[in-house]
């Protein structure tokens, strides 16, 4: 069989699967008589992240924080304005002679699952055609691609005999999301970017899909970037977590560290905003007031300072660099950084 197999590991276990530095994406807002650029949305404004081999990196944040733009940048569905992406030691999109990986090869190794399970499927293709499409494009003979599609349907828990010939509109939301997952796996990717994959599903179906994602990761040796606004789901599925606020990384670290000892005031507030599930211990005060500011005109210095309970003068003057707390745990907050000039400097790193 000429079925596509997963690309081999090149950089070894210590090399992150994907390493991103200084990722920037600004969207121009045009207006006026001649469609001049009147402002920019600073959707992603200097993001560094690393996804290690075999882990699940959870990316959380509120709407407008840039998490979906980050997902699209990681997939290279949109071109970044600045920043470098290194996939298993090779520069993404760089010339092959200098150790780069061409975009076509990169996109075969990185696949994506979107929130809207219906909009991301072609309504005119049967399920089988949808899943077999990409392998055929990459040169797999039609009958082998079909066979592979049936295997994948079985792997995502849908009986091939029953579903292969159906169309997307004949399926439920949960079933459609399984098809999207099967399609993403058709090219044997190494990294799967999951952009709010369970947010549109009912709770009982959400649990089914989360269990499936855990199983598939094990079975196919996958690495996940899992983007969600749901803190409980991210805690459940992630090994490490990245908290974003207004186009910047606020905090990153192992999941237990972030959830048990959040260092950034925003992470603390976000975690404290979760409903308690215990009616006898209801909250009386909201952890934060107001909405996140507009990313068109973000606050100077630290972007969280306008809602931060411990903001001081230094927070408006300088943007906080990432402070290292423990191994792999970093928070971009002056209060966590010794010698920053903040009155709590260094003491927040509890």
């Amino acid at each position, binding site marked *: 069989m000429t079925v596509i197999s997963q690309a081999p590991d090149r950089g070894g276990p210590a090399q992150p699967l994907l390493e991103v530095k200084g990722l920037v994406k600004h969207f121009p807002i045009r207006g006026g008589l001649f469609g001049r650029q009147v402002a920019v949305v600073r959707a992603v404004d200097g993001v560094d992240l690393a996804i290690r081999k075999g882990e699940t990196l959870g990316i959380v944040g509120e709407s407008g924080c840039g998490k979906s733009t980050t997902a699209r940048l990681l997939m290279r569905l949109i071109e970044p304005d600045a920043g470098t992406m290194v996939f298993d030691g090779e520069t993404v999109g760089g010339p092959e002679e200098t150790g780069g990986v061409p975009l076509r090869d990169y996109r075969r190794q990185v696949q994506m699952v979107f929130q809207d399970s219906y909009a991301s499927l072609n309504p005119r293709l049967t399920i089988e055609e949808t899943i077999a499409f990409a392998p055929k494009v990459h040169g797999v003979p039609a009958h082998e691609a079909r066979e592979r599609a049936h295997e994948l349907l079985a792997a995502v828990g849908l009986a091939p005999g029953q579903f292969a010939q159906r169309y997307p509109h004949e399926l439920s939301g949960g079933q459609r999301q399984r098809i999207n997952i099967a399609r993403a796996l058709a090219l044997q990717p190494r990294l799967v970017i999951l952009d709010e994959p369970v947010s549109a599903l009912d709770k*009982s179906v959400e*649990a089914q899909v989360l269990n499936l994602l855990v199983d598939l990761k094990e079975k196919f040796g996958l690495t996940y970037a899992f983007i969600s606004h749901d803190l409980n789901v991210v805690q459940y599925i992630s090994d490490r977590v990245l908290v974003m606020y207004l186009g910047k990384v606020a905090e990153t670290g192992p999941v237990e560290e972030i959830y048990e000892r959040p260092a950034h005031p925003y992470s603390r507030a*976000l975690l404290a905003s979760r409903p308690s599930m215990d009616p006898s211990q209801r*909250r009386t005060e*909201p*952890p934060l007031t107001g*909405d996140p500011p507009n990313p068109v005109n973000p606050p100077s210095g630290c972007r969280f300072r306008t809602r931060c309970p411990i903001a001081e003068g230094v927070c408006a003057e300088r943007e906080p660099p990432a402070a290292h707390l423990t191994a792999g745990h970093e928070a971009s907050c002056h209060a966590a950084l010794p010698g920053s000039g903040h009155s709590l400097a260094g003491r927040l790193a509890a």
Partner: protein
Amino acid sequence: MSAAVRMEPSAPLVRARNLTVRFVSRDATVHAVNGVDLDLAQGEVLCLLGESGSGKSVTLRALMKLLPRQARVGGEIMVAGRDVQAMDERALADFRGGDVAMIFQEPMTALDPVFTIGRQIAEAVQRHEGVSRAAADARALELLELVQIPSAKRRLAAYPHELSGGLRQRAMIAVALACKPRLLLADEPTTALDATVQIQVLLLLRELQERLGMGVIFVTHDLGVAGEIADRVAVMYAGRVVEEAPVVPFMAAPMHPYAQGLLGATVHAGMRGKRLTTIPGAPPSLETEPVTCAFAPRCALAQEDCLAGVPEARAMGEGRMVRCLRPVTK
């Protein structure tokens, strides 16, 4: 005017008996609500909990007679002592916004984009209370302050698109509260909001409910939201209420296997590394009215007698009710 109808204090604010809703079209009939009984006391918060297609939003809309024409509504609906089914358009115009108001998930579609927030609130006040424009404008300002919109005076002149999502939701709440309704119907009002804003709006609604003594029926699919706001919970499945209970005992130990499955499937802290319990299968299509326990095909405890008919509502003590032959009791 609504004020003409006075009720005894003990009378329930909402009383629905055997409520049914069918959507009839040429191709198919959908049995969306199949015999719902609801009671709500003055000043009580009831959460209607269920997944998509369970009939929770349709039930809510039926209470305000907001369903489209092709909906066939049956049963008895009494709200604030008045028979909703019997009301004509004129009576409904007084009733909606006066005795009862509704807030929605998406404020951008619920608010009128071409009028300022202040005008939309003042319009409701003028329409229902017949006061002057100046008095209505003053009331609009009070209401924006009530829902804790910062720099309220300036926001009166703002159009909906000029506000952030959280402020828009507050503005919609202000419109709904303009005429001091006794019953507030809330259809997933916090679902589209971010986590830090959702908790603010939930706390605001709880505070306003207590301060104004409103009855609230709050539709949600989120158990956590129900835990924050409800006094009582009614779980819907396939157009019926399958369990009803005060929120504290319910969250501690749901009795219906479906409610239990739902709680088990809801991801919360401390579940990391464990396999999530799931409910196999999917809800029924409702093209025919379920004549048995609708959950039986997905239920691990189901036996033959579960398919013999719709289980009767059983009182379980502590104000609890469950429609199940084998409720889970510890």
